[in-house]
């Protein structure tokens, strides 16, 4: 989509056009960032259609609040935060944090890095989506977005310990799923670690 329209406007011109509500500029902005933001939405959603909804909601919020952008950071970073925050709102509505034993040092013993390298990105997204919303959200916030456990705890209203435990469990499950996805890379033993 982004390649279909080659915007000849600078980022500032694009933003200024969107502030005026010009649909042409809004469409250009959408095509510029929609693919990257759809990637964000796919990571936070549990299925493809839900990711579409997140993308739609996110862009509507971007266009409604674009005049608040102060050019203090990158525009893409500002848009990304809107999409992440929008996804977190959905997490709060459907909060589903499994009660897990508090542990940070947890890893799937039979995971191999080669499996991840050879895994297709689309398949990896599906594996992330297959996690429960609590695991998926904390994994995305910590591993991909780079938030600390303290920040995650404040954002989601949980303790740091809960965030760490959920992350450890999410990481363990992903490693296991990846190993299972790529059996020719590494064959996991029949016995599974208790989750």
């Amino acid at each position: 989509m982004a390649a279909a329209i080659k915007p000849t406007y600078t980022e500032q011109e694009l933003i200024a056009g969107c502030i005026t509500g010009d649909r042409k500029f809004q469409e250009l902005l959408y095509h510029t960032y929609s693919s990257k933001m759809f990637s964000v939405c796919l990571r936070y959603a549990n299925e493809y259609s839900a990711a579409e909804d997140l993308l739609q909601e996110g862009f509507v919020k971007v266009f409604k609040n674009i005049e608040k952008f102060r050019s203090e950071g990158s525009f893409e970073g500002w848009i990304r935060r809107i999409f992440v925050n929008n996804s977190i709102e959905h997490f709060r509505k459907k909060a589903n944090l499994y009660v897990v034993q508090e542990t940070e040092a947890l890893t799937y013993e039979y995971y191999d890095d080669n499996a991840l390298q050879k895994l297709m990105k689309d398949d990896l997204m599906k594996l992330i989506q297959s996690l429960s919303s609590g695991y998926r959200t904390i994994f995305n916030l910590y591993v991909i977005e780079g938030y600390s456990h303290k920040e995650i705890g404040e954002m989601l209203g949980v303790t740091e310990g809960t965030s760490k435990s959920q992350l450890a469990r999410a990481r363990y499950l992903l490693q296991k799923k990846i190993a299972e996805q790529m059996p020719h890379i590494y064959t996991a033993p029949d016995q599974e670690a208790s989750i």
Partner: protein
Amino acid sequence: MSDKRTEERNEAFDSAMREKVAGYEPTVPHALWNRISAELNETEEVVAPSIPLYKEAAVTPRWNMAIAAAVIITIGAGSLLFSFNGNNGINSTPTAHNTVVNAAPAVRIPVSENKTVAEATLTVSKQAVVIAKNDKPAKNEVAISVKPESTTPDNTAVTAQSNDDSQLASMPATSQNNYIETGNVPVSALKRLSAPISLNDEITVIKPAPSKKKHHKHGAEEETTTKVIVIGKKYDSAPDIRYQVPVRF
């Protein structure tokens, strides 16, 4: 597996995941922009009606004010017309400083000679000179009901004191004229009076000579002087501004 080694492996896993996800740009559904655009249109349509509502709220009081202003103007104009044309109320003690400048043309009201009217004796309390200026439009005029001095010997009026035009119109004719004139005696000179004009006052009405142009055309005409006695005074609802008293010469 030690905690340290687990931590290292986790960090390596996290880093690999970040790299794997970083460059991922999936194909966006083609129709998604249409959905976003439609939602933006809906949002704008919902917001739009607030503008006319605000304007309407601002305009409505103006209409009310315009209507109220029109009613006030109508009432004011009506009352002004009424006060200029009508004879309302009775002033018992008009004062000299309530000055009237100009006079209105006198109106002749024929009166039957045989009509009997009760007579009353009037006492002249003071004398005054009133200069008539009939050639100017009436404005803030004082009109005084008077009777010719010659017809009222011994200060006896030929009619009862009257306070309205209908009763004045029923006054009997005098020996000098066969009709009663009611009108507005211009009393611009009243401002020069030291005392107020009241009922039964004897005043002299001096009708100024016509203008010079008229004088040349119609021959010599001198000013006329008539001594009259005030037998009634009328004024409207604003006595400080305007008096109107029927007058009879």
